[in-house]
C-alpha cells in the first residue's frame, strides 16, 4: 500500500514540475477552463438560490387563491363569493384581498399597493417600502402624494418605512387602509381583487378547487403548490436555456482542449520519449496524463466555483441577473442566502470536467504510446 502511494506521489511530483515548466500553454488552458466553470456555476448557483428564495417567500402564502376571469381576462371578485366558499367543508377561512399596481410616471417606478390583513394603517396614512422611501426621500411623518385612478392626487401621511429584512418583497410596497385603497383604485365596495383561502389538509386542495369552479364557473382557483411548481419550472427552464445557449462555448472549449492535448510540442514528445527510454511504461505515462488532467480540472473547478460563489452571493450576480430574474420585477439591492448542494456540484462536474476528460483521453493515449526511438532519432 505504502509503495502504491509513493509511486503516485512521485508521478504527481513529476507532473506538477512538468506542468510548471510550460506555464504559458497550461496557464491559457486553465484560464479558459476556469472561466467556463465560473459562468456555468454562476448560472446554477443563482437560479437555485432564487428558487429557494421563492419557496421561502411562498411558504407563508395562502393555500388557495381564487380569481375571477371574464372572456379569459382577469376581473375583480364579488365579495359575496367568500360567504358561499366558506360553506365548503375543509375551508378554514376566506379573506377578500385588495391589492394592485400603480405606475408613477414622474419617477418611472411601479408600486405595489396592498391592504394588509393585520394592523392596516389609519385612513389617510400609509406604510412604504424602503425603495420608495429612498427614491422619493420620504420618511415617517412626511406627507406624500400619488395620483389615483382618476388622475387626481391624493395625499397620505407616512406612518412607517418597512425595514430592510425582506427587501426583495417589500422594496416597492405601499400599505394602506381598505377605505383609502378603494378610493385610490376605484374598486367598488362590493368587489375585491381576489380571495385567499386557508385549508388545513393538503389532500383536500384539489377537491376544494374543483368545488369552487363548480360553484362559480368563472372562478380560477390557484393552488400554492402550483405556484411553487411553476416557479421551479421557470427558474429551472431559464438556467437550462442559458446552459443550452452556452453549450456552444463548452463545445469550443472541448475543441480547444483537444487541440492543446493533441498538439504536443517537439519538446514534450522528446520528454515522453526520454521517460520511456529510461524505463517508464505506457501505463506510467497514462498515469501521469491522468494526474495532469486531475490537477488542471481540480484547479479550474475550484477557482471557477469559488469565484462564482463570490459573484452570486456577494455581488448579487452583477453579470447576468437581468436574464435570470426577469425584466419586469425588481429594483431593490438584495443578497441571496448562500446555499450549495451536492447535486449542483455534480451537475457542474458533468458539464465541465467530463467533456474535458473525454476529449483528452485519446490524445493522452497517443502521447503515451509514442515510441522512444521514433522521437529521439
Amino acid at each position: 500500500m505504502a509503495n502504491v502511494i509513493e509511486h503516485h506521489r512521485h508521478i504527481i511530483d513529476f507532473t506538477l514540475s512538468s506542468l510548471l515548466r510550460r506555464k504559458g500553454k497550461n496557464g491559457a488552458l486553465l484560464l479558459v477552463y476556469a472561466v467556463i466553470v465560473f459562468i456555468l456555476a454562476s448560472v446554477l448557483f443563482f437560479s437555485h438560490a432564487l428558487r429557494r428564495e421563492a419557496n421561502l417567500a411562498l411558504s407563508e402564502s395562502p393555500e388557495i387563491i381564487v380569481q375571477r376571469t371574464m372572456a379569459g381576462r382577469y376581473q375583480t371578485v364579488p365579495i359575496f363569493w367568500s360567504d358561499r366558499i366558506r360553506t365548503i367543508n375543509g375551508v378554514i377561512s376566506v379573506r377578500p384581498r385588495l391589492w394592485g399596481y400603480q405606475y408613477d410616471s414622474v419617477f418611472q417606478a411601479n408600486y405595489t399597493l396592498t391592504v394588509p390583513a393585520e394592523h392596516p394603517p389609519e385612513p389617510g396614512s400609509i406604510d412604504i417600502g424602503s425603495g420608495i422611501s429612498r427614491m422619493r426621500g420620504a420618511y415617517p411623518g412626511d406627507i406624500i402624494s400619488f395620483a389615483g385612478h382618476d388622475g387626481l392626487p391624493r395625499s397620505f401621511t407616512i406612518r412607517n418605512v418597512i425595514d430592510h429584512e425582506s427587501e426583495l418583497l417589500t422594496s416597492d410596497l405601499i400599505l394602506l387602509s381598505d377605505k383609502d385603497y378603494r378610493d385610490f383604485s376605484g374598486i367598488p365596495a362590493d368587489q375585491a381583487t381576489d380571495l385567499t383561502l386557508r385549508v388545513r389538509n393538503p389532500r383536500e386542495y384539489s377537491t376544494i378547487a374543483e368545488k369552487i369552479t363548480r360553484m362559480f364557473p368563472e372562478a380560477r382557483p390557484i393552488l400554492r403548490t402550483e405556484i411553487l411548481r411553476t416557479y421551479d419550472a421557470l427558474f429551472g427552464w431559464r438556467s437550462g436555456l442559458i446552459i443550452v445557449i452556452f453549450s456552444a462555448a463548452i463545445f469550443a472549449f472541448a475543441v480547444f482542449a483537444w487541440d492543446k492535448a493533441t498538439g504536443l510540442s517537439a519538446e514534450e514528445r522528446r520528454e515522453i520519449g526520454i521517460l520511456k527510454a529510461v524505463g517508464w511504461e505506457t501505463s506510467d505515462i497514462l498515469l501521469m496524463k491522468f494526474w495532469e488532467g486531475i490537477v488542471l480540472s481540480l484547479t479550474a473547478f475550484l477557482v471557477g466555483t469559488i469565484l462564482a460563489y463570490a459573484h452570486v452571493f456577494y455581488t448579487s450576480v452583477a453579470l447576468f441577473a437581468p436574464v435570470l430574474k426577469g425584466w419586469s420585477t425588481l429594483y431593490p439591492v438584495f443578497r441571496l442566502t448562500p446555499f450549495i448542494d451536492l447535486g449542483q456540484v455534480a451537475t457542474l462536474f458533468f458539464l465541465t470536467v467530463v467533456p474535458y476528460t473525454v476529449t483528452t483521453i485519446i490524445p493522452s493515449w497517443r502521447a503515451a504510446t509514442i515510441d522512444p526511438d521514433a522521437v529521439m532519432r
Partner: protein
Amino acid sequence: MILNPGILALFITSLLISLMTIYAACHGIQILRRWDIASGSELQLILERRTYLISTIVTYFLAFQLVSLFLFIQTADSICHLFVGAMCAVGTLTVNSFGYPTLLLKVLTFIIAGLWLILNYADNRGYDYPLIRAKYLLLLILAPFVLAETVVQCFYFFGLTPDIITSCCGTLYSQSARGIASEILALPVIPAKILFSVSMLATCAAGMRLFLNGKGVYRLAALSGITFVVSIISMISFISLYIYEMPSHHCPFCIVQKEYGYVGYPLYLLLLSGTVLGLGVGLLQPFRNKKSLEHIIPAIQQKCAGAAVVAFVLFTSIVSWQILVSSLKML
C-alpha cells in the same frame, strides 16, 4: 422535456459515454478478431497499444457512471415538485414507464464495468495478455447495455412534462398521488430482517473462508449477488423506515438527502463495491488454470474477498447503527 441543468448534464454525459463505449467496442471487435500474441506484425503492436486506451476509457467510464447514478437520483428528487403528487424521487421516476428501467440499467452497467476492471487488473498482471478475449467479450456485452441506458434515459427525459399553471385555467385536476409503488413492494419487516441477517452472515462467512483457505469461490460470488438484491429489498422494507423514523416511508432514495446526513452515499457505495468485488471473485475462477495466472488469480481473489467482506461488514455496521440510534422502534 424539461430544460433542467441536472437533466442536461446527465443527457450530455450519457451521450459522451455512449460515444466512448462505441469507440471502445469497435476496437474490441478488432482485437477479438485479429489478436495473435505470437505474431510480431505491426497490427499486433497497434492492437497491444490499443488495449491501454480501452482500459483507460472503461476506468473513466466507471467513475462517471457512479457519479451519474447519484446525480440521476438527486435530479429526480429535485424536480419532483414539478409533478402533481410526486413527493420525492420515487414519484418522479414513476412519471413515465422509463424511469425505473433507466435506474436499473445504470446500476447494471456500473456492476458490469466494475467486473471488467477486475478482469483487466488480473489480465495486466499476466505477461502474455491471458484474459484478452474474455475481457473484450465482456466489453461487447457491456456496450449494448450502455447504449440501451442512453436511449431509455432519453425517452424518460423527453417524456417528462411538468404540471404547471397555464394562463387559461388554474387548478389542474390530475391523477391522485404517485409514489405508492414502494409501499406495495415492501416486504413485511420481520421476514426481511431475517433474510437480511442470514444473507449478510452467509456472505461474510463465505468471504472469510475464501480469504483464509482459498475455498468456496462460486459460493461467495452467488451469495454476493443474492445479498445485493436482499439488501435493496431490506432497504425498502425496513432500513429506510429506521433512517426516516417513520413507519410508512419506504423510499430508498431520500436517504441520500441532506436531512438524513447523506447516509445513503456510503451505504450504496459500500453495497455496490462489495457486490462488484464478490462477483468479480467468481468471474476470475474459470481462468485460474491459465499458466501465466496460476499464482496471480488466487491472490487477487483473496484480496477481493477480503475487501468485499470489509465492505459488507461496514454496510451492516452503518445499518445497525442507524437502527440502534433511531427513535423508531419495531419488532
